[in-house]
């Protein structure tokens, strides 16, 4: 049953080597790299990039869910607690593309899902 559920969430970005092998044993887990801006790193008390384990299809929503689960202090800082909408002055970049206005349920590029490249969380440039 678990395997079927995992297959139901398969996307091209999870169809590679190790992850496909692990599919035989349980749900697909991806090791996603995330680069946070300075203020969120200090808030979460982390240095440098971090990695989060994402189950199933790697989407922006799934990455943020995992991020907030591991670092509850970040909850509400990137998206609204209730509406789950992105905060206006926070942007998300994947593979040099601004995906801030894409659906948070859309699969992220394979390079993000496989950990080849980090997902960037950026504070919008503002001020003068």
């Amino acid at each position, binding site marked *: 049953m678990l395997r079927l559920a995992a297959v139901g969430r398969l996307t091209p970005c999870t169809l590679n080597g190790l992850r496909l092998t692990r599919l035989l044993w349980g749900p697909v887990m991806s090791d996603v790299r995330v680069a946070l*801006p*300075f*203020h*969120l790193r*200090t*808030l979460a008390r982390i240095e440098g990039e971090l990695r989060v384990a994402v189950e199933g299809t790697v989407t922006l929503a799934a990455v943020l869910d995992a991020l*907030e*689960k*591991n*670092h*509850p*202090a*970040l*909850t*509400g*800082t*990137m998206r609204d*607690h*209730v509406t789950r909408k992105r*905060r206006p*002055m*926070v942007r998300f970049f994947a593979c040099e593309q601004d995906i801030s206005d894409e659906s948070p349920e859309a699969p992220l590029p394979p390079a993000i899902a496989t950990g080849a490249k980090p997902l960037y969380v950026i*504070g*919008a440039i*503002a001020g003068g």
Partner: protein
Amino acid sequence: MSMVRVLVGTKKGGFILTSDATRKKWKVDGPLFAGWEIYHMKGSPVDPNRIYASQSSGWFGQIMQRSSDGGKTWETPGGGMQKSPHGFPMGESNKFVYDSSPETGRPITTHLWYDNSQHPWEFKRVWHLEPSLTDPDMCYAGVEDAALFETTNGGVTWKELAGLRGAKGEQWQPGAGGMGLHTIVLDPKHPGRIYAAISAAGVFRSDDHGKTFRPVTRGLRSDFMPDPTAEIGHCVHRIALDPVKPDTLYMQKHWDVMRTDDGAEQWREVSGDLPTDFGFPIDVHAHQAETVYVVPITSDSLHYPPEGKLRVYRSKTGGGEWEALTRGLPQQDCYVNVLRDAMAVDKLDKCGVYFGTTGGQVYGSADSGDSWEPIVRDLPAVLSVEVQTLP
């Protein structure tokens, strides 16, 4: 020997200033939460080691911080190892959701907007924190858009006391600085009595621990309003309770300094001979009834001291007659402002008075205002000043 701890919130972080009771030599610690706006920090009167801080950013929103060791270390309540009953990590200390439930919140969904249309209530930030007089895990938060929240678990979760917005909230309208609940006063004489002041809605009182509120604005007059004596719409900048006579409160309004002697049932003007009655902060001596402090500001268009002279004004007669306190304060070329939450007093025998400026100075007086010295000169713009008197 007693100690004094001054909690300073600034545009770019928090600072803690400490001194012994002489208040001559100060230690400056900070910045805490560097780079973030610290709207307010305030310690529990029951447990001075418990301090709450409101940390916010235009980018990442509201964060609540809590210290249980007098500001040495901080945590986002529930943001660490604490788990919900279901075993999930909790990250809800910054979750401020307006109550619109039929039971307690009533469906109050909009307030008056600048153009007189109705506008949805939107949470922006926590302006003011007021820890309970009896329980260090209990604290009130005044937020923008104006509403009152309460925590009973040390800031892990917050719940709105929606009875306040039930006091004609649909008529409230923001001022130029937003619609913030900036002052919460807990009455030590009447348990359950809470005053809340809002720009630009007025002042409200609860006598049932915040379940219900009513406007208490009789006697206020605001000439910018279509009806200058209307119940709702006064731009109250700050209120302060006289700790010796708790039924007496003072108010710095957009214009006018006011007082009440009956728990805000009736206000009267005591601006008297002030050079201008526009300003933001107001506070009361810790031990001497009728001794009040304000910092007059030129006007609502010119937010700096008249004539470039930074002067605190003190009345020892409960208003009406005021004296300028200038010794140690800059008396030329000074164009800073003192914001509404940026003045406080300590409780030492010789009451200390403190205030911070938008120019980053924090001034202190160890002699009830007779003379002043800068404790620190070059902080970011000061948003708030609170004082703890430690045994």
